[in-house]
């Protein structure tokens, strides 16, 4: 009986938290609708049902993180660290980065958009076949770059390299490439860094980093465990610009 009560209590807290997360959006939309645009709100019932779904969905998601994604990511990281095989760990890191990015819907959309932009700039042919080939190549490039990023990030955690040195080197690389890449691709390249890390990848990769750093002696989960996502959002920028120069 008390278990059921506890569950209901926990569920209520999760729902309240999720409602709090949504509140800023509701306020912003309401303010602009009433004060600035001053038009009646379209489809109010639909919006209210949608908002309720968002709250319930967020609550489920966060509970799922706590009991599923986080523990699994961490136990896997610990198992790899215990096994001591760098090859398996690197293979896993690459597969996780590549596999989760290649099918990412946001990336598919950005790649198609990029192909259109580049074709308009006259760099490739405008027939659908050429566009598809370009978009496919771009998607693969970004997926490989995220795989490489997670591998580099994992090796960094094992070796204990300071994160800022690699990131600053990455920044310098991006700045240098910017001046050689075709201008049409630069905006897309910069944006591609932000869209690669999906909502399921982020918790897993974070748990992997933190789990790894806490099971290797001499590594601090706070200073060494984070940073994988940062690499995963830097390397696509560089790889996409290189792709634009080579293709």
């Amino acid at each position, binding site marked *: 009986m008390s278990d059921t009560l506890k569950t209901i209590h926990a569920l209520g807290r999760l729902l309240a938290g999720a409602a709090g997360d949504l509140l800023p*959006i509701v306020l912003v939309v309401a303010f602009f609708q009433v004060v600035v645009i001053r038009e009646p709100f379209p489809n109010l019932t639909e919006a209210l*049902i949608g908002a309720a*779904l968002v709250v319930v969905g967020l609550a489920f998601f966060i509970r799922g993180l706590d009991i*599923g994604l986080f523990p699994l990511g961490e136990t896997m990281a610990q198992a*790899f660290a215990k096994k001591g095989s760098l090859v398996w760990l690197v293979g896993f890191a690459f597969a996780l980065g590549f596999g989760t990015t290649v099918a990412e819907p946001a990336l598919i959309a950005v790649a198609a958009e990029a192909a259109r932009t580049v074709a308009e700039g006259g760099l490739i042919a405008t027939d659908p076949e050429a566009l598809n080939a370009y978009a496919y190549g771009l998607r693969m490039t970004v997926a490989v770059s995220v795989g490489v990023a997670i591998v580099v990030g994992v090796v960094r955690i094992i070796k204990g390299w300071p994160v800022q040195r690699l990131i*600053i080197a990455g920044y310098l690389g991006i700045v240098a490439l910017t001046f050689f890449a075709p201008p049409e691709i630069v*905006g897309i390249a*910069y944006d591609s860094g932000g869209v690669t890390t999906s909502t399921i990848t*982020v918790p897993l990769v974070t748990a992997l980093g933190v789990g790894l750093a806490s099971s290797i002696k001499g590594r601090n989960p706070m200073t060494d465990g*984070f940073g994988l996502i940062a690499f995963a959002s830097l390397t696509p920028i560089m790889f996409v610009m290189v792709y634009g120069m080579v293709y």
Partner: protein
Amino acid sequence: MELVNHILGTAWATLFDVIPIAIILVCFQAVAIRRVPPNPKRIAVGFLYVFIGLTLFLVGLEMALFPVGQTMARQLTDPQFVGGAAVLGQVKWTDYIWVYVFAAAIGFATTAAEPSLIAVALKAEQVSGGAINATGLRIAVAIGVAVGVSLGAFRIVSGTPLHWYIIAGYGVVMLQTLAASKFIIALAYDSGGVTTSTVTVPVVTALGLGLAATIPGRSAVLDGFGLIAFASLFPIMAVLAYANLVQWLEKRQIQRNFRDQNQQRETHP
């Protein structure tokens, strides 16, 4: 009925997001680790929750936020609404004040509800033993996105080149890194990548393309991109700035305490 169809359709799409990840995890678990993780049932339930949660979340967003966000982005960038010089087909950046305000407000609000950011903030609070407050971190990141998207909107209106902003931003981040405590650096860099996913990207992209399409002389393809880049760079600055500020305040507090103690010693020997 329509709602049920919508949910099932989204569930199908989300399933294709989850399946490759599940396959990779199961394969490596079976081939490399060769051991069943503790509580396999609980973990499976967790995955199910994540799947259900994401599906409902996306359906809700598509019903409640995306149409409104896109309509508002269109209305706010409409030359009739902007008024001033825009009606005559000219661009004066001061006419677009409401666009900047909207960009900042919607950037802040969508980031606050971003599930990836919630995940990273929860982990950071847990790992730091509470020294980093999950809500505080999320607010810092959301402020960063607000400033970033707002500045990005200004860039599209003024038509200045994207890469100079980004390169200058990198410079600022490097300087801040030198001054920041090692404790926060990796987390700050991570917060740039997690801000822009499910909630923020569709709304912010609609704003960028709407602006570029309605402002005379801007091309949607050349100028419409770049808002996401701003939204991923500025949170890094915001988190580092927050860390710099906390450090500076602590240092001042320690110095003050030290001075007080010395004074007390002098007055009460």
